[in-house]
């Protein structure tokens, strides 16, 4: 590659990077440098790879959250869809060799079904997403309570799930990170290179205009929610593999970080604006923040306060809306 094309490439890259994304990446670097003042190990490759591995779980879940937020909707059913993904895949593992082989797809499929329910409510029944996803979350919780209490299913994960979440690929790259890379590449392709992706951005800006331009907006919304449900459940499958078992409250800690990661990455919560690069930055930022706070042995109380203050401060930095009117 010659010198000229390289500068042109970096120039093109610079133009495409939003200020929020740049700030988010800047904050990641600043955080690592601050952390390295405390301990040299913050800059070691092992620590960084470990963080990326932990970030992958949030990354997969946040991908679905992002697609929904781009539509201008919100998915509050993440906690129990994650749990459904984890618990159904481990349950399938207990159903003999066929179940064990199908554990991962089965877990994801259960999430897709719940996502379809969300999408149908939002797109065709015109129920505000905040309410219908809340209701679906409650139903998923009820199903899982009956499932565990009534059928006492297996809760330990299959070897394949464990390998996917904790194993290493070549050069010590964690499998989980590769999974996130594949999911992320798929999301980038879907959002930037397909009519579906264009439609998602269009609906996020104004659904009526998208409809009048000939887009079947209702079907796009339905599919987007189904994808989000599947990705949440996939996150649950990975988490169950990581912890080698599934538990009921396993998804509770993922709703708010996923939304925060997407918004910190510069996506507008009102929809129609945001890039996947920003979501990557947001996910790494949130994971790193949580990790650093726990490494310096701050109490849970201090962690929560810092976490909240940092999110508000960063949003005040670049997430403000323009003066309306």
């Amino acid at each position, binding site marked *: 590659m010659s010198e000229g094309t390289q500068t042109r490439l970096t120039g093109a890259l610079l133009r495409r990077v939003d200020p929020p994304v740049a700030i988010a990446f800047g904050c990641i670097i600043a955080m690592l440098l601050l952390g390295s003042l405390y301990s040299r190990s913050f800059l070691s490759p092992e620590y960084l790879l470990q963080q990326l591995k932990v970030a992958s779980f949030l990354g997969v879940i946040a991908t679905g959250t992002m697609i929904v937020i781009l539509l201008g909707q919100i998915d509050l059913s993440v906690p129990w869809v994650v749990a459904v993904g984890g618990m159904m895949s481990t349950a399938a593992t207990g159903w003999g060799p066929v179940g064990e082989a199908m554990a991962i797809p089965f877990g994801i499929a259960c999430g897709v079904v719940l996502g379809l329910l969300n999408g149908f409510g939002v797109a065709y029944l015109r129920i505000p997403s905040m309410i219908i996803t809340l209701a679906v*979350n409650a139903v998923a919780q*009820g199903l899982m309570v009956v499932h565990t209490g009534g059928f006492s299913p297996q809760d330990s994960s299959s070897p394949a799930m464990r390998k996917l979440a904790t194993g290493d690929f070549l050069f010590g790259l964690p499998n989980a990170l590769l999974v996130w890379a594949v999911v992320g590449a798929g999301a980038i392709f879907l959002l930037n290179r397909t009519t579906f992706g264009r439609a998602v951005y269009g609906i996020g800006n104004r659904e009526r205009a998208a409809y009048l331009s000939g887009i079947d907006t209702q079907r796009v919304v339905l599919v987007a929610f189904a994808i989000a449900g599947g990705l949440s459940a996939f996150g649950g499958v990975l988490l169950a593999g990581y912890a080698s078992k599934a538990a009921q409250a396993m998804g509770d800690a993922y709703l708010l970080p996923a939304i925060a990661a997407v918004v910190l990455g510069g996506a507008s919560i009102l929809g129609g604006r945001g890039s996947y690069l920003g979501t990557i930055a947001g996910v790494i930022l949130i994971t790193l923040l949580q990790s650093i706070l726990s490494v310096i042995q701050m109490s849970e109380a201090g962690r929560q306060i810092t976490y909240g*203050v940092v999110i508000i401060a960063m949003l005040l930095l670049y997430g403000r809306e323009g003066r309306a009117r």
Partner: protein
Amino acid sequence: MSDWRYRLAQNRGTLLAFVFFVVMFAIYSSNHPAGFSANVVQTAANKGVLLALVAMAQTFVVITAGIDLSVGMVFVLTNCLASWIVVGTATTAALGVVGVLLTGLACGAINGLIVIYGRLQPIVATIASGAVFFGVALLLRPIPGGDVYGPLADAVTGRIFDVAPASLAALVVVVLVLWVPYRRSAIGRAAYAVGSSETAAYMSGVPVGAAKFCAYLLSGLAASLAGLFLTFVTYSGEASAANGGSYTLFSIAAVVLGGVSLFGGSGSAIGAIFGALMFRTIGDLMFVFNLDPLWQPLFQGLVLLAAVCVGSARLFQVRNRLELFP
């Protein structure tokens, strides 16, 4: 009165919530093994009032087309605070109550400042501020414990003349002191105007910022009343993330069941209160029918799902598909 039809249409959500609640509670109490006794009502009331107060807190903000995802955390924070300061003699306990309510107002003020002057989206801003409130609650009560001024707690959670539950009376007082004057005041009307259309309200000279700020303040205040009441019920403080999270989510459900529009501008706190009581009764219905408690969460979820789908019946009236996309 010739305008009864309009008034009926405007309060339809509240009336529906009231009717549904009465029907459900009638089914509940008539099937209860102990029958419609003061004891049954008192237990149900204490549980219901907690959620009703949190739902009321949510209503103030939802009317202005905002949302407060930190109500549950303010509730938990004030619960922890009350378990420290509402103790001792009658005087110190009274001062403690004032302190708890002021803390609630402060939380509301923080939310209001961030949302209005920081110009952040309420969904994200209140998620973050909720984390801060929960952190403070954990600082106050790393492990559950504490105490509360007994006579006051017994008076509020007990029964008046051994018949009516005192908590319901307290709720009525809160509505009369907080909601009714607010609804009739200029700032309350401004909140409805802002919720209907912020631009139109601004153009008509409505103090948009003040109306929103006042809504967040009152939301914090109502949430702190709920926290105080939880302390009276449990005699202790607990920084429970699960409690905070579920009360926030339940408050949204209650608001919706109570006929308050999440798009702002319509509904009332009274509707939300009946929505909350209804939501609690749904949960309790399982017990009186002797069904396995295992099925309770699923039953509650399905009823909630059915309830939110009922609103879609209006789709049958849509003549032009464009009306689907506002």
